[in-house]
């Protein structure tokens, strides 16, 4: 109960500071939607040149990008700012977090909750809604469950990737942009049908790292399409499992990292 009050205090302080400069906040709110709008716009521009990409039509591709954007935006809103960990490690701010009697990760997230990213989630879910309406989905109880679970599973999965890439800073403070290759790179990867990519690159990202289960496999299951790459139809229902697995790995790495942390003393 006391813990909860502490979190509420951290969160509401964040909300007050974000909204105290109203004009600046509005610019950031709309600027942030811009980034997600351009992701979807890129898909539309590419389909101007061709009727199909990777064997998928525009409608089907929008379903994939919608699932990916909704999940990514939700993860970016809630845990995205964990990538500032390297700044905290360098500046020694992390010490102040660790001496408080609360777990470090929720504190870090609430210290810097990016309220300005909220509209992105709204936009991502809207694109998903439009895609669901544009495709003729044969609704079964399984598919209804899937459309609800997939964006949440995608958010958990991306959230785990955010935590994993941020954890790099415990071992390598100058990890720089490496994390972006998997967070923003993962978002770009999941925005298109996996059949677009080739060779070892596809195997690595889609199956070894699990990005294929974020949006592509669930979209196939929703559409009732056979996977041109040969995975069975029930593979789409694996996405919550993949997400839970990723979260478990992220939790272990995070804990190891916290224990490994040596303060800079500054």
């Amino acid at each position, binding site marked *: 109960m006391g813990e909860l009050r502490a979190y509420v205090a951290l969160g509401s302080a964040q909300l007050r500071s974000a909204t105290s400069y109203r004009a600046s906040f509005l610019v950031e709110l709309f600027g942030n939607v811009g980034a997600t709008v*351009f992701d979807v716009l890129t898909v539309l521009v590419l389909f101007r*040149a061709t009727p199909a*990409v990777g064997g998928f039509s525009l409608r089907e591709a929008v379903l994939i990008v919608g699932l990916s954007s909704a999940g990514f935006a939700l993860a970016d809103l809630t845990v995205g700012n964990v990538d500032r960990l390297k700044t905290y490690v360098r500046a020694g701010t992390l010490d102040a977090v660790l001496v408080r009697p609360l777990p470090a990760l929720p504190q870090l997230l609430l210290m810097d909750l990016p309220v300005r990213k909220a509209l992105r989630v709204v936009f991502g879910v809207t694109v998903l809604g439009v895609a669901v309406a544009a495709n003729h989905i044969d609704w079964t109880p399984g598919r209804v469950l899937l459309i609800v679970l997939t964006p949440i599973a995608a958010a958990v999965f991306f959230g785990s990737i955010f935590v994993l890439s941020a954890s790099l800073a415990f071992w390598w403070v100058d990890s720089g942009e490496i994390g972006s*290759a998997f967070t923003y*790179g993962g978002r770009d990867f999941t925005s298109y049908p996996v059949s677009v990519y*080739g060779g070892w690159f596809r195997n690595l990202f889609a199956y070894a790292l699990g990005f294929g289960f974020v949006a592509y496999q669930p979209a196939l299951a929703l559409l009732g399409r056979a996977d041109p790459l040969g995975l069975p139809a029930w593979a789409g229902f694996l996405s919550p499992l993949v997400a839970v697995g990723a979260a478990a790995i992220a939790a272990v790495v995070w804990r190891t990292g916290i224990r490994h942390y040596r303060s800079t003393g500054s």
Partner: protein
Amino acid sequence: MYQRDASVPTISRIGPFRAFVATFGALIGSGFRRYATYRQATIAGTFTNIVFGFLRCYVLLAVAAEAVGRRPAGYDAEQLALYVWVGQGLLSVIGIWGWTELADRIRSGDIAADLLRPIAPVTGYLAADLGRALYGMLTRFGPPLLAGALFFPLHTPARWQTVPLFAVSVILAVVICFGCRYVVNATAYWLHDARGPIMLWTLGSGVLGGLYFPLRLLPEEFVVALWVLTPLPSLLQTPLDVIAERDGPALQAGLVGLQLLWAVAILALAALVQRRAEKRLVVQGG
């Protein structure tokens, strides 16, 4: 008469041309050394550039495979692959994002120290930026291009003038990008906080500069308007179209000529903005 005291070279805004060149060169050198100290960051950034190269290249090749005539927007598959990989190499050379130094110095008041220097701020920051770009060219340009060449068939330039023209185009792109960033940062003189304009710049420059997809995929009239009315396509689209030999020799050279006009215009604008700002600048005390 102008005299040198002992062996100390005089640095002066109204001094002779040689002293100016020496100062400008020294500033380029210091910009180079400043970025050369972040070696791990260079490696990390290169890795990320390469991953994004794979992502963009596969997507555009999939578009090419199913487009009518297999030439979306007039590029064949090898030209598209070259477009992507040279683009990933140039990204940090041209340095579209992440420069908030001027805005930060304006907000903190440190800009006052820059105004006391015997070299105009626009010139001083340009020299440092050229040093940064030179370091980027030596370290960040090659690896993505090499990775691309190993995994994808890339277009090989066929005309003799393409490579020198590309070199000129890259230098002009660096100057134009610097000028744009300078003007965007300088809005902090009036707004005290340039975060809004910097965010708009980050969004606009990536999409309308030709990074996410070749602008030629957009309706033609729109692209021409963009090219003539804004400096954005001159940042990446022009050097990439030049090296991919997307157009005939005349248009190829014409696009670089357009870049030259933009480079002059944007530097003049930056200098004008700086002069106006200096007149109304109130340095915060402390």
